[in-house]
């Protein structure tokens, strides 16, 4: 028991004062909902929505293949949608990386004041309403949209291209909204790259490709991996981009979950799908953290020895 009147006791009281209310709030309204959703995912769906309080594993069975009853059957479509979500998220990561990597180099070599202004310009769209930014792409990609109108006016095409409601549109939309997410961690590690090291590599006889592969890439890898994971996570579970730019044709897992709640009214199944998304994200995050700590150990050991 910590006595009152000691430095320790006073600090304990202050700590409770600081953490008490937020902990209570998050315990009820954040952990509570997650616990209930986890529970729901193992309950039987009611006939007209709602749940029946029986332990029920077929919600997961429907997704992964062991459900084979009269009412509940395995449907590979769910896994397909899931695979498509992963694929589109990976495309988003790849494309945004390809776009941001050269830009990060370009900005890192600008004079200080301009550098800060450019970073401000990149961060700014993050604060612009998401729906507004996506709406812009609807206007651009529609059959009667800006791109088609422009191409037809120039005589390059005479039929509008089908761009909206495709996987391409979904990826472009996600890349657009997640560019700051990819850029900032990438830039942080590109900025740290000492140009003298690149020159040293040239000086030691490495060509451009060799220098890139042996010096630049390894040095900026933390930013690449960090940016990738930060883009991958919100892309995978995204719901708003595919619903606006993918339409009914390009369903992602987020849309599937929405349907279970708002139209199919199968809450336990929707909860089970949500748990699967959560699990995927947690696993990818865990792999990332493990990789990072391993790398830290490899690179940090010789440096520490030098310092000691």
């Amino acid at each position, binding site marked *: 028991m910590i006595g009152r009147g000691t430095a320790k006791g006073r600090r304990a009281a202050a700590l409770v004062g600081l953490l008490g209310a937020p902990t209570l709030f998050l315990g009820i309204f954040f952990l509570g909902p997650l616990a209930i959703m986890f529970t729901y995912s193992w309950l039987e769906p009611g006939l007209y929505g709602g749940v029946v309080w029986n332990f029920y594993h077929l919600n997961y069975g429907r997704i992964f293949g062991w459900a084979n009853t009269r009412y509940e059957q395995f449907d590979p479509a769910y896994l397909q949608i899931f695979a498509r979500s992963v694929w589109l998220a990976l495309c988003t990561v790849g494309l945004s990386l390809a776009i941001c990597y050269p830009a990060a180099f370009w900005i890192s070599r600008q004079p200080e004041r301009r550098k800060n202004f450019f970073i401000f310009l990149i961060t700014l769209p993050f604060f612009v309403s998401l729906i507004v930014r996506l709406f812009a792409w609807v*206007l651009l990609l529609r059959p009667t949209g800006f791109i088609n*109108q422009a191409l037809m006016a120039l005589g390059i095409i005479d039929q509008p291209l089908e761009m909206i409601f495709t996987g391409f549109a979904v990826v472009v939309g996600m890349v657009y909204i997640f560019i700051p997410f990819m850029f900032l961690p990438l830039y942080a590690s590109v900025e740290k790259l000492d140009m003298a090291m690149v020159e040293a590599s040239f000086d030691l006889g490495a060509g451009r490709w060799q220098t890139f592969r042996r010096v630049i890439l390894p040095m900026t890898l933390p930013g690449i991996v960090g940016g990738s994971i930060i883009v991958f996570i919100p892309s995978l579970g995204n719901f708003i981009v595919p619903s*606006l730019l993918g339409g009914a044709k390009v369903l992602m897992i987020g849309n599937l979950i929405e349907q279970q709640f708002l139209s199919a009214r199968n809450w336990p199944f929707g909860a089970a799908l949500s748990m699967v998304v959560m699990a995927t994200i947690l696993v990818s995050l865990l792999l990332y953290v493990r990789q990072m700590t391993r790398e830290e150990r490899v690179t940090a050991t010789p440096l520490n020895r030098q310092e000691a």
Partner: protein
Amino acid sequence: MKRYGGLSRLLSVYGFLFFAFIYAPIVLIVVFSFNANPVNMMIWDGFTLDWYRTIFGFPARLTESTLYVESTRQLYGAVRNSLLVALVASSVSTVFGTAIAIAVARFRFRLKSFYRAFMFMPMIMPDIVLGIALLIFFVSTGVKLSVYTIMIGHCTFLISYVFIVVSARIADMDEKLEEASADLGANSWQTFRRVTLPLILPGVIGGGLLAFIISMDDLVITYFIAGVDSTTLPVFIYGMLRRGIKPEINAIATIMLVFSIVVASAGLYLRARRK
């Protein structure tokens, strides 16, 4: 330096394209919000303020097309809800997030690393999962969906954003300053009022502004936990978009754009000033 001269020029061209990619769509909205063509929004047909007139409830002169915004009252209601929710949710989460940030930065306790990890959870969780979890929670505990449920829902993830911004600010602050204050006779509360708070204030304001903007902008979570008569602006626009694209949306989007750019610039300016 000569040997990457060509590469350098190439990079500059690339940089221009990069910013064009980011800003062209936004500029497009602004420009075409003044387009007088009521049939195809993307074909320029002269300048008009009609769409702005429409959303502010004035009679439009140029167009005889049916008033797309069913009622400006609904739009205003959504704006009011958005502002109300953002104000309350960002205030509450600023207090909570700052409290947790101070506790984690300044105290030694056993659950510290748990809190640190826990604060990142709402950020890695897909919006739709959190939105649905909250929906299930409110429905199964019998809470009626309203602006209040939206406020609670927003707080659950805004606390994390405030926590991260304020934590960064506290990390820059010398812990010894608080000891110096105690040494000079100030108790914990006086130390907080006179030393800690003034020094972390830019971070707290920055975090609060960020929370306000994110709350104003949130669509997915609000979409699930908004009651029938408690629509917010993003949800309202989302509904409009799903029913069809009409020119008035350009005008609304432009106004939102200007608003968020002004608020964000103020916030980023405050953060840059901390040196």
